[in-house]
């Protein structure tokens, strides 16, 4: 829902970091985005392409790793993925807070992140180097 504003904060943070290293170009950026955020990856990619135009990020490769939701059960100690609701009414499988092991309510431990994991910078423009 808020991909453009979130992506614009991402681009800003990258430009700031790249500036510290006197980078000529940013070649690649790696994001971790949790499945429980309300960020659509397609919209993040689109916003990124628009926002990087005319900056040293233009032409960079954007890698997004989608992080699974992780829950923790205080009752039986289960830690792992969600139990998904398999009712056919859900076209997209919907996670529930029910423990897949014992049925008690679980706490959310992971899946809400939106993190810039790392980036590759080109320090000189002389070589034309592609990202991996």
């Amino acid at each position, binding site marked *: 829902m808020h991909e453009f504003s979130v992506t614009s904060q991402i681009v800003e943070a990258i430009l700031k970091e790249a500036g510290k290293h006197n980078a000529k170009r940013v070649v690649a950026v790696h994001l971790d985005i949790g499945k429980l955020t309300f960020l659509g990856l397609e919209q993040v990619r689109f916003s990124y392409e628009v926002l990087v135009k005319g900056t040293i990020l233009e032409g960079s490769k954007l890698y997004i790793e989608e992080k699974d939701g992780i829950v923790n059960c205080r009752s039986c100690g289960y830690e792992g993925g969600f139990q998904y609701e398999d009712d056919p009414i859900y076209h997209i499988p919907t996670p*529930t807070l029910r423990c897949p092991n014992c049925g008690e309510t679980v706490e959310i431990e992971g899946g809400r992140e939106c*993190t810039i994991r790392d980036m590759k910078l080109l320090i*000189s423009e002389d070589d034309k180097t592609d990202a991996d």
Partner: protein
Amino acid sequence: MKDVVEAEKGEIFDIELDVNILEANRKLANENKELLQKNGVQAIDVMGAIGSGKTSLIEKLVQNLKGKYRMAAFKGDLTTTIDAELIARHGVEVIPINTGKECHLDANLVKKALKRINLEGIDLLFIENVGNLICPAEFPLGSDKRIVVVSITEGPYMVVKHPFIFMDADVVVINKLDLAQAMGVDVKKLENDAKTINPKVKVVATNCRSGEGIINVINALEL
């Protein structure tokens, strides 16, 4: 001194970062929570679709809890203060928060509003979010409890269509109970849908115009 390590010409630098973009709001939300707790104020976030009855619910809660708590309310809205005035007529302080075009409140707006009230003068704060069942779930405000209001007139699929917000709810209020028969909506089904997603959520059916069920909301909130 040892030589400084520098990149060769054209070398690619791999910079490890750990910048969490959504963390900024969460940090502010925690600060709000600490400030409220320090002043002994319990805050309740009221979320739900446009026209579901969030303001009516707060009005009825204020009427019923008047003798017990000193209350105030923040009222999120895009452009008007209509709802803020509805709550204020019950004699509580209301700070309207107009978001302009934003579809949800965020921790920063709540932080600003917190500066405008005397926290020592209240024990209970209602924060009514902008009418929306999607975005408010992404932006915690620093409240102790979160209510999601759904109403019968929104139809039988409101919960399954917007499952994520129910994960963050402590109490679900199913409002406009008096219209269930006319709308052909099964209240029990709505309740089960909410409990499937979040087994520990408390579900209460109300008619916020007549006041039916309000006492159950108060009990569910442990007020």
